[in-house]
């Protein structure tokens, strides 16, 4: 079989223009399909659904994304990064911190409440040298915050300077949040100057808990800055929370809007997903047409080969292998292109959508597209390549 590729390389060379067209077209349409679908689905899935799955009641919670400006403005050096929450939010919070902490802004201490969260923090310490390499790792006590957190739907929050200032002046005061009428007391948050600065991540309705924990774990800590950004799961809560946050002094919710946009209505989501599927269908149709061009079996060429003694199945198999190889190349190229496209998004998106992450979370989609395209290739065999079996040397004489 391999020696027979010899004359097929010549055949491929003859139709190289069609091969290139096939390759480029399929790569572009695959990329477009992957990009559109991934943008629509992955954002919602990666962020929203992930949290929904972890916290079924989480549709009515406040989750957060850090405001880059808030963190940066918090301090030149963050002495302590306290992270409270379950595993997912711990990871996300640290990811967010990673994206927002500037080089040289190092963190000295990392405090976390859960064991797993601590493990994640430890991981980040190792992987974010410019931020965490010099940090002392302070594992929280074995506070079963997970259960409490879940029940209370607590999530990590970065608190803005405005909130910090507000809370600083509200020490001892009771603040009521309208979300569930939770009251929390601002405890022990005060500023003692620039000696120690700390970013505290906590959940508004249960702010008292992390505040207590921090105070217990790190006595007499100085809270200089509290970075806080909130994102709301649905519109009604959004409005409510927004006003609450505004009363707390939080106004720089740029990331908030970003993720709010992701949390589109169900109708919009369905529309975008439908659009994505339509794009994929169009992509497959274009691919099919390109494949048809490339697989334009030259009957006279096949007839000559058969006249000289070539066997049908061999010719068919070689055609099949060659063009499937081209398809695989196009498919791989399209995955790369779409991934590069997705990673163009800055800040949080960059963190979330790095290449391995894209592949991991989009793997079902990629696999589905690969399977669908493979079915197309196999179908093309029955549509086009069967002709090879039907071509015979007599066809040469019919043309005369």
């Amino acid at each position, binding site marked *: 079989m391999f*020696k027979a590729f010899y004359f097929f390389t010549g055949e491929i060379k*003859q139709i190289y223009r069609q091969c290139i067209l096939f390759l480029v077209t399929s790569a572009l349409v695959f990329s477009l399909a992957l990009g559109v679908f991934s943008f629509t689905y992955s954002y919602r899935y990666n962020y929203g659904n992930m949290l929904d799955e972890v916290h079924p009641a989480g549709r009515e919670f406040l989750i957060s994304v850090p405001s880059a400006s808030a963190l940066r403005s918090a301090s030149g050096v963050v002495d302590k990064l306290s992270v409270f929450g379950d595993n997912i939010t711990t990871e996300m919070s640290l990811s967010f911190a990673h994206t927002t902490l500037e080089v040289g802004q190092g963190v000295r201490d990392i405090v976390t409440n859960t064991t797993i969260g601590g493990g994640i923090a430890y991981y980040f310490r190792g992987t974010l040298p410019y931020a965490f390499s010099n940090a002392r790792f302070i594992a929280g006590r074995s506070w079963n915050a997970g259960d409490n957190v879940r029940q209370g739907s607590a999530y990590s929050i970065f608190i803005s300077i405005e909130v910090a200032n507000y809370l600083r002046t509200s020490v001892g005061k009771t603040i009521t949040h309208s979300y569930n009428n939770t009251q929390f007391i601002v405890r022990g948050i005060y500023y003692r100057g620039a000696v120690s600065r700390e970013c505290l991540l906590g959940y508004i309705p249960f702010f008292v808990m992390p505040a207590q924990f921090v105070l217990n774990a790190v006595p007499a800590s100085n809270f200089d800055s509290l970075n806080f950004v909130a994102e709301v799961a649905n519109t009604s809560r959004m409005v409510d929370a927004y006003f609450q946050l505004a009363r707390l002094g939080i106004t720089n919710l740029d990331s908030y809007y970003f993720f709010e946009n992701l949390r589109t209505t169900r109708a919009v989501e369905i529309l975008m997903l439908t659009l994505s599927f339509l794009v994929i269908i169009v992509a497959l149709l274009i691919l099919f047409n390109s494949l048809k061009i490339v697989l334009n079996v030259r009957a006279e060429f096949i007839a000559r080969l*058969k*006249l*000289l*003694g070539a*066997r049908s199945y061999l010719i068919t198999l070689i055609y099949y292998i060659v063009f499937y190889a081209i398809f695989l190349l196009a498919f791989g190229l399209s995955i790369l292109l779409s991934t590069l496209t997705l990673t163009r998004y800055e800040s949080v998106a960059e963190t979330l959508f790095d290449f391995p992450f894209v592949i991991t979370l989009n793997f079902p989609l990629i696999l589905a597209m690969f399977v669908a395209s493979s079915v197309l290739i196999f179908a093309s065999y029955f549509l086009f390549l069967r002709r090879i079996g039907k071509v015979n040397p007599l066809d040469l004489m019919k043309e005369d």
Partner: protein
Amino acid sequence: MIQVEDVVKRFKDFYALNGVSLDIASGQYVAVVGPSGSGKSTLLNVIGQIDDITSGEIFVGGVATSGLLERERASLRNKKFGYVFQAFYLEPRYSVYKNIEIPLIIAGVKGRARRERVEYLLELVGLTQKIKNAAGSLSGGEKQRVALARALTNDPQIILADEPCGNLDSANSEIVLNLLADINKQGKTLILVTHNMEHANLAERIIRLQDGKLVEH
């Protein structure tokens, strides 16, 4: 070498061959003549395993061919027969070298041996200098000589030539016919289909067909 026994080839209601029987000995030079539509080319095609027969039997080297599998027929076409046609049937975008090489590739001949064989055949037909030229760029006479070289690549026992001079001028026709005669002198069986009686008379035996039937053999 070749035995044709009561062969019938029918296309719907038309009998291209209607009960043809003949024997062709090994090394024989046979010309098949007859008016247009008499079945000359059809006879050549069924002998050469290019076409099937409706009934009867054709023996090639003692082997009955009607029951052969497709891959066995393909093997016969590759190793037992060499074909020369009026329209040449070269791959115009391939080089002369590659056109001649294809049967060798199909036969599984290694690269170095292929090259040696191709160069030998091109020297035989006097086209060594055209080895790298695209087949489509050659003149009619040169194309037919390349086709002849290709027909000889696997040293077949039987050469089938269907109007090989149909698209050639007299000078090139003479060259091609002389080459065919030389090939026959080497012991190969040659079956030449032609409507030109001058060409037919060069053969040692003439078979005449009319309306699918043998009238002279």
